[in-house]
């Protein structure tokens, strides 16, 4: 569904990604792993063009196609792209507004005013993010009154409220405790049924637990991309093997 072809990426003069070619399949979880600074987050942020915000960041070669459309083409409306390709960030970042307002933020942007539609969206999205039962009695409490794990699931609810096709997750559990992490991982399993998910993670066990395919990056290069089981059991590249067995990284 997402085809990345021969992608080179620069931050100003320094090259962050070298010749990445990768296909991401629909309704699967694809994990990007690798040591810090290997370019996995950079690649993730290319997929919904969040890198546009950074001065001097540019794609110097290659292209990213989503459903066959080059997303860096001139006539692509980046707002439309981001509605289709949602993102959950490393640090949970709910707005300091009510839980309800957080979830409907994207819909309100699209000009949805109908109260019943908004109410429905809030319930479906919060159920989808496995948060409904915990917050249904205090939808108008501040989003910041929730615990860290709940905040992150609220961010996921906010993302699925606008019904994207792809959800990008940038180390969504790095600030969470193991129990909250387990909940988010369980949620990823459910979300997979409806969305294409790309997750960047530092935690190899997490990649092993919840992804279908794993891509290992090192120094801006894609070292190996294969079904997760293969990457962890029978890696073909010695660098991959060294990383997943914990010898470096």
């Amino acid at each position, binding site marked *: 569904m997402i085809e990345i072809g021969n992608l080179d990426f620069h931050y100003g003069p320094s090259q962050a990604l070298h010749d990445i070619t990768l296909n991401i399949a629909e309704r699967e979880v694809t994990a990007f792993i690798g040591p810090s600074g290997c370019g996995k987050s950079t690649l993730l942020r290319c997929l*919904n063009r*969040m890198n546009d*915000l950074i*001065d001097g960041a540019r794609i110097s070669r290659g292209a990213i196609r989503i459903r066959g459309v080059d997303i860096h083409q001139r006539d692509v409306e980046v*707002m*439309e792209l*981001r*509605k289709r390709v*949602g*993102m959950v*960030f490393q*640090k949970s*970042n*709910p*707005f*300091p*507004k009510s839980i309800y307002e957080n979830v409907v*933020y*994207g819909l309100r*942007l*699209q000009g949805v005013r109908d109260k019943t539609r908004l109410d429905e969206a809030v319930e479906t999205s919060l159920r989808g993010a496995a948060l409904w039962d915990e917050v249904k009695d205090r939808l108008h409490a*501040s989003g*910041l009154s929730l615990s860290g794990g709940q905040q992150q699931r609220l*961010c996921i609810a*906010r*993302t699925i409220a*606008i019904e994207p096709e792809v959800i990008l997750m940038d180390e969504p559990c790095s600030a969470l405790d193991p129990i909250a992490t387990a909940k988010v991982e369980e949620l990823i399993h459910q979300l997979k049924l409806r969305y294409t998910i790309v997750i960047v993670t530092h935690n190899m066990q997490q990649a092993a637990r919840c992804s279908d395919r794993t891509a290992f990056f090192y120094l801006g290069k894609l070292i190996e991309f294969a079904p997760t089981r293969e990457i962890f059991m029978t890696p073909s590249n010695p660098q991959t093997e060294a990383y997943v067995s914990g010898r470096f990284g």
Partner: protein
Amino acid sequence: MSHANHHPFRAKPSLGRTFEAGVFWVLRSTAYIILLCGGFVFGDIVLKGSSTVFRTEFPFVNTTFLTEAPESLYVFEHDGVKREMGDREFRAFRGAEARKAEAAGKPAPEIKATSYVYSAGGIYPCIVGTVLLVVGSMSIALALGVASAIFLNEYARQGRFIRVVRLTILNLAGVPSIVFGLFGMGLFVIFLDWNVSLLAGWFTLALMVLPVVITASEESLKAVPQGFREASLALGATKWQTIRKAVLPFALPGILTSSILGIARVAGETAPIMFTAAFVVRDKLPWQDLERASDFFFQGVMALPYHIYVVSSKIPQNEYTERVQYGTAFVFLLIVAAIATTSIVLRARLRRRYRW
């Protein structure tokens, strides 16, 4: 361990400790001296000013002082009694005396009075003028300041040009206010032909506080976590939608804080308005006898700081003018405090609503 005071952490007198104590006292006394100076200035104004503003009998407030225009004070002796009267009262009194004398068939008595300018009546037009100047110029300064802060912080590509713009804005804050006054007179009063008017004063004062407002607004925008912007953009918002819904509301408390400082400056500055907006004396209130609604903006007003300046340096000094000086200064402090309190309350409300 039989002797509890022989533990290894026991304090020993040393040079370092003495020095430490000395530094502490120097710092402490500096703070106290500043407090003392401030207390003395405020105490003096409050003490002497309150005797003009407040009364011992009902209604406890000197309503004449707060609700009427300045008048000349006439001091004279009549039938062996020393009397003080405002202009209108004095004329009525003289007329009455003359009629009394006429009825008795005597020539009108000559009343010899000494007059003191602006020492009777009140300062109502000045209060009105200052409030109008503050509200108008702060609205202009906030609109322009927040807009340019948004541009500088959110839209502009951070490069050398923007650094120069920022530096220029900062330097603007160091320009003496009299220069702003002369600039305002040149541009607004003469070139744009607005005359000495509210509008000219508004823009001159707004330009003067603009650097403070811009710098502080930019700081408050920077304080809004980058995560809010990213989250909003990732949900398909345009840049402007992001700023309006996910940045500006959370920056407002900080922007209001800066405007509180601005209010005190705008209300207190004399130099920028003396050429652009302030009249020494004006009989009509700004909303009286307007031919067209637009005339409201093109008229001068009286203002508290300028009135203080006039009564303390432009007229002969005596015991009667002192009352007006202190009274005006006191009322001025009260008004600035009132406006500042309003914005502090507003800020507290916003903070409660948007806390992160």
